């Protein structure tokens, strides 16, 4: 990248963000609203949250729930998806059920989660697990199904079968597609944790949004929480994107190498 292009890559997004904040500020001033906070009020809100220790605690709670739910989805979804992709008969049997459950919004499961686990961490984790499971499962299944016969044949030719063929040929060949599924699932998990925390628990960034509104209409804190959610989602996405830049999987991501 030339120096000029690098400068543009930083400068242009910074300008766009500054313009948006300026627009927000003048809109608050022009309408004279005392409900919706100005950018400065939100910044003070973030500082207040940091001072009370809520910023770190709620962020940590939300991330821990995502880690638990997403981790469970990963631990179950990847092996199950690989198994289904490996055994076409099993995939044919399970596919209608998967396709039926998949379009159900995870939020529709909230009553079920509360019946099963009550108002608890487990409810939120269960919802995150459900929301991340299907993208991961389907990606692993399709990834394995789509492995070219040539790779399988080459692996068998070198004397591999069963578990060795799976781990040395099928899994690495399917890995780029599995990673794409993991990335989608992580985005969904982060969206769902906020919704789950509004209903099922008493901490976390989603709880912060709803609690700030209910306890004294603190819209500065509502917007502060929203921005935090956005920033952390962005960081999570950047982190998982880095994984797909590893050289052993990069071949599968050629189109979106930007």
């Amino acid at each position, binding site marked *: 990248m030339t120096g000029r292009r690098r400068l543009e890559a930083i400068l242009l997004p910074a300008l766009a963000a500054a313009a948006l904040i300026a627009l927000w500020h003048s809109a608050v001033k022009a309408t004279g609203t005392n409900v919706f906070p100005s950018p400065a009020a939100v910044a003070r809100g973030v500082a207040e949250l940091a001072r009370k220790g809520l910023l770190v605690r709620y962020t940590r709670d939300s991330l821990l729930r995502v880690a638990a739910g997403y981790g469970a989805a990963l631990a179950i979804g990847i092996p199950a998806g690989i198994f289904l992709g490996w055994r076409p008969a099993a995939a044919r049997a399970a596919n209608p059920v998967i396709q039926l459950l998949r379009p159900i919004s995870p939020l529709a499961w909230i009553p079920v989660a509360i019946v099963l686990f009550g108002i608890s961490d487990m409810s939120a984790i269960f919802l995150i697990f459900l929301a991340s499971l299907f993208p991961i499962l389907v990606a692993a299944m399709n990834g394995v199904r789509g492995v*070219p016969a*040539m*790779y399988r*044949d*080459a692996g*068998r*030719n*070198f*004397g591999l079968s069963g578990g060795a063929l799976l781990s*040395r*040929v099928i899994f*690495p*060949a399917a*890995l780029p597609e599995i990673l794409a599924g993991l990335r989608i699932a992580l985005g969904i998990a982060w969206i769902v944790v906020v919704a789950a925390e509004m209903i099922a628990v008493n901490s976390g960034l989603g709880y912060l949004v709803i609690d700030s509104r209910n306890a004294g209409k603190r819209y500065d804190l509502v917007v502060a929480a929203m921005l935090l959610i956005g920033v952390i989602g962005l960081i999570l996405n950047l982190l998982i994107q880095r994984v797909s830049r590893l*050289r*052993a*999987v*990069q*071949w*599968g991501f*050629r189109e979106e190498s930007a």
Partner: protein
Amino acid sequence: MIPVPEPAPRRTKVEIRGLQMTFRAENEVRVLENMDLDVREGEFVCILGPSGCGKSTLLNIVAGFLAPTAGTVKIDSEEVHGPDARRIFVFQERGVFPWLTVEGNIGFGLGCLPRAERERRIAHYVGLVGLQGFEKAYPQELSGGMKQRVEVARALAVDPDVLYLDEPFGALDSITRLVMRGELLRIWRAEQKTILFVTHDIEESVQLADRVVVMSARPAHIRRIVEIDLPHPRDLSSRRYLELRDGIFEEIGLAHRI
């Protein structure tokens, strides 16, 4: 004068008897009909015919990837029931594993060797196919010809008795193809392998083979076997070369009504 002993006649390596193949799609497609062929140890045999004549099917049966409808394939008097690491199939360069480096690909079949021996062999075959300096490169960073050489080296590294090559140079540009033919001949003579080489290119078959097996149109049987009694390196403008080439061209023309 001491009489020069006649070289012992080379023993039969591959023995194909009464081979038939019928695919059952909507209606039955007879692909191979009553095929008999013997390949001697260390011999370079080209199987020549246009696309779709069944020559790839033949090679896949001999390699053990497909089971024939009738007939047998024996190698060293032992019937073939599946792929075997003593006989490696070289696909077009697409068979190279994109998730492994050049080294990783070439060492793929050497998992059971001690580390030092494994590294020695990898280095030897990297050198043999002229890829020094690219050991750590991934296939996506290589040209088509280099990938093809990786695949040939991967096959040779496990020291097989037989190599099956299915139009291995078909996707290469014409200059690279010429170079690769030279390389293959060099390696064949250095490593004393038996080679079955499928091609639709008459020139290629006459340049490479000890014998050219001319296939008929589908259902395929052997139309003629042409001995190429020319020493290597072959003079591609000699009378005998042109005579053999034109003879095969005529035979193919009769068989396929070109």
